[in-house]
């Protein structure tokens, strides 16, 4: 077995792991799905490469060789597609994307006719026994790959520019390992030309790249895939070790002991199985340890808590932004009670002997002070995050209280409010968190209607006995291509947005066992529908 085949074997396990993790995860975001497809193609390529390296007979070798070129025809396009999806540019570059896929199909057809290689000129190039020489058509193949990959890098680099820290840093890391991986992969092409006798040294770079992707997925949750990765990685490594043990046994036995035992494969299999059974648990512990200490540098638990900590920090930031808007609205709210208090205290020195005035004074000033107190309390409530506390509640109260908080904002922005609150059953909910949900949605609606409009808030009871809260505005609407990303953390189109508002909304609704959906049309408005289970 040549070393290069082994490297490709490892790569195929790693890329298979990534593809599986991505497809097992429920996330169906275009960027995640396209990266999954890309990982799967890398798996096919490396696996066929691995099989090709193992062959000792020419015809079989050529079959695997031809097979391995099929995924290669599409890899760069899957990667380009991913880069577009990741940077929300699919619709902008739709034509380039279609053209690229079309070229890939043509490449695959040419490959089926063995058009890229001169099969009459096959050399033994260490460590491969049968290495074909390029035909003139291969330059087309390489050309289209290089153009599309460079284009992808360009698009990813552009999207880094508009990303904020700390995500900028992660994206940079991601792009760097991407460039390393692709540069490594590209060295495979050189060996097909006699004039550039550089052996394919690049595939270990692909290993490095795949490990890097694992690391970023795990540590920074770049595809929103949480802790599935740890197990997958461990089992991928275990499978690798087990395969190695198994192969070693078979090979060693067949080479050394065949002469003693005759045909001894069965004994070899049994012995291999026994060894694997004995070694399985220590091996697993060894790999977990290795991963935690050597690869990640920290215990996995510590890493994930680091991640969670950062998310909490950002959530706080977002919450404080909402609080700031509320506070400016409330500054106005405070003015009414303040006016009353001020006027009455102004008259106090002249009228403190007038019993009628004194009775009015207590009647008016007391409640006004309480109003200010309650406003301040409500504001504080928003600035402190707290764990979910469910209670029976009427959603109308929560909606009305949140709308009341924003009444100043509605006036300021010339927004008409329409409420439709028919009789509905109660739900189990966390009042504070739901207030935050509605606050975020209302603030978004206000921002979507800079020149005024109508905000409609209605509730209804569905046939499935669910409670539907509908919040719709007549604002600028959300571009179609942004809709799939709307609830993604850190997705934002606002200059100073953290991209967490709607992600928090989504998270809270999910915790309540509810669902949230959005419909939007450009310049017509946006409608959020939230479904809650009733009691």
């Amino acid at each position, binding site marked *: 077995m040549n070393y290069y085949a082994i490297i490709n074997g490892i790569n195929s396990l790693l890329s298979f792991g990534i593809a599986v993790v991505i497809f097992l995860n429920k996330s169906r975001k275009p960027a995640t799905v396209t990266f999954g497809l890309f990982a799967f193609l890398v798996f096919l390529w490396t696996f066929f490469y691995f099989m090709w390296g193992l062959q000792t007979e020419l015809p079989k070798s050529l079959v695997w060789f031809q097979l391995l070129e099929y995924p290669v025809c599409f890899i760069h396009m899957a990667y380009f597609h991913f880069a577009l999806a990741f940077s929300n540019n699919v619709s902008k570059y739709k034509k380039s994307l279609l053209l690229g896929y079309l070229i890939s199909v043509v490449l695959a057809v040419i490959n089926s006719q063995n058009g890229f290689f001169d099969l009459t000129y096959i050399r033994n190039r260490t460590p491969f026994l049968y290495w074909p020489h390029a035909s003139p058509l291969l330059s087309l193949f390489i050309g289209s790959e290089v153009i599309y990959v460079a284009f992808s890098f360009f698009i990813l680099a552009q999207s880094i520019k508009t990303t904020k820290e700390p995500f900028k840093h992660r994206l940079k890391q991601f792009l760097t390992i991407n460039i390393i991986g692709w540069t490594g992969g590209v060295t495979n092409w050189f060996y097909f030309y006699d004039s550039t006798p550089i052996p394919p040294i690049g595939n270990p770079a692909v290993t490095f790249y795949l490990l890097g992707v694992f690391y970023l997925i795990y540590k920074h949750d770049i595809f929103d895939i949480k802790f599935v990765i740890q197990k997958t990685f461990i089992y991928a490594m275990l499978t690798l070790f087990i395969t190695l043990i198994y192969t070693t046994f078979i090979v060693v036995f067949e080479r050394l002991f065949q002469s003693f035992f005759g045909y001894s494969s069965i004994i070899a299999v049994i012995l291999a199985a026994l060894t694997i059974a004995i070694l399985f648990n220590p091996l697993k512990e060894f790999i977990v340890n290795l991963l935690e200490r050597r690869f990640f540098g920290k215990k996995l638990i510590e890493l994930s808590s680091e991640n969670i900590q950062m998310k909490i920090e950002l959530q706080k930031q977002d919450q404080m932004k909402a609080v700031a808007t509320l506070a400016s609205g409330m500054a106005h*709210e405070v003015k*009414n009670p303040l006016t*009353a*208090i001020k*006027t009455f205290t102004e008259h106090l020195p002249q009228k403190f002997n007038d019993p009628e005035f004194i009775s*009015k004074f207590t009647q008016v000033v007391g*409640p*006004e002070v309480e109003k200010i107190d309650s406003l301040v309390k409500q504001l504080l409530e928003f600035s402190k995050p707290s764990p979910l506390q469910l209670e029976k509640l009427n959603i109308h109260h929560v909606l009305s209280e949140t709308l009341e908080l924003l009444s100043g904002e509605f006036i300021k922005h010339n927004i008409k409010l329409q409420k439709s609150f028919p009789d509905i059953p109660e739900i189990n909910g966390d009042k504070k968190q739901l207030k935050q949900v509605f606050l975020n949605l209302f603030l978004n609606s206000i921002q979507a209607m800079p020149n005024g409009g109508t905000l409609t808030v209605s509730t209804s009871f569905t046939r499935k006995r669910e409670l539907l809260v509908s919040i719709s505005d007549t604002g600028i609407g959300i571009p179609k291509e942004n809709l799939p990303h709307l609830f993604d953390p850190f997705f934002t189109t606002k200059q100073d947005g953290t991209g967490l508002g709607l992600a928090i909304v989504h998270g809270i609704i999910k915790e309540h066992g509810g669902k949230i959906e959005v419909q939007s049309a450009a310049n017509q408005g946006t409608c959020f529908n939230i479904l809650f289970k009733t009691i």
Partner: protein
Amino acid sequence: MSLDSNKPTLLICDDEEGIRESFKLVLGDLYNLRLVRNGVEALDLLKTFTPDAMLLDIKMPKIHGMEILKQIKKLKPRLPVIIVTGYQSVEMAQEALKNGASDYIPKPFESQQILKAVSDVLK
């Protein structure tokens, strides 16, 4: 409330009890006051009655103060209206004056400010 025919009559439109009481305290000795809580009540009253001036809040339930101002100005173009609001901004002040308001006073106000503004519009 009995009306003293020697005193000018002011219509005050504000949804906040504390504010209405404050107006009573500041203006009650010098003027006859008619107090209403929202635009619907104000417009109803104005169909049958013409005060000498009006004090109007902006943020109120049912009808937005600015909308009330426009309708009043259609109904009684000569009635002086003073806007008294906590939601002050240059734009809103400009819009109020454009729609025919005579003055624009931010909350919290000084008693003297109100007294002066009312006596000015009544001149």
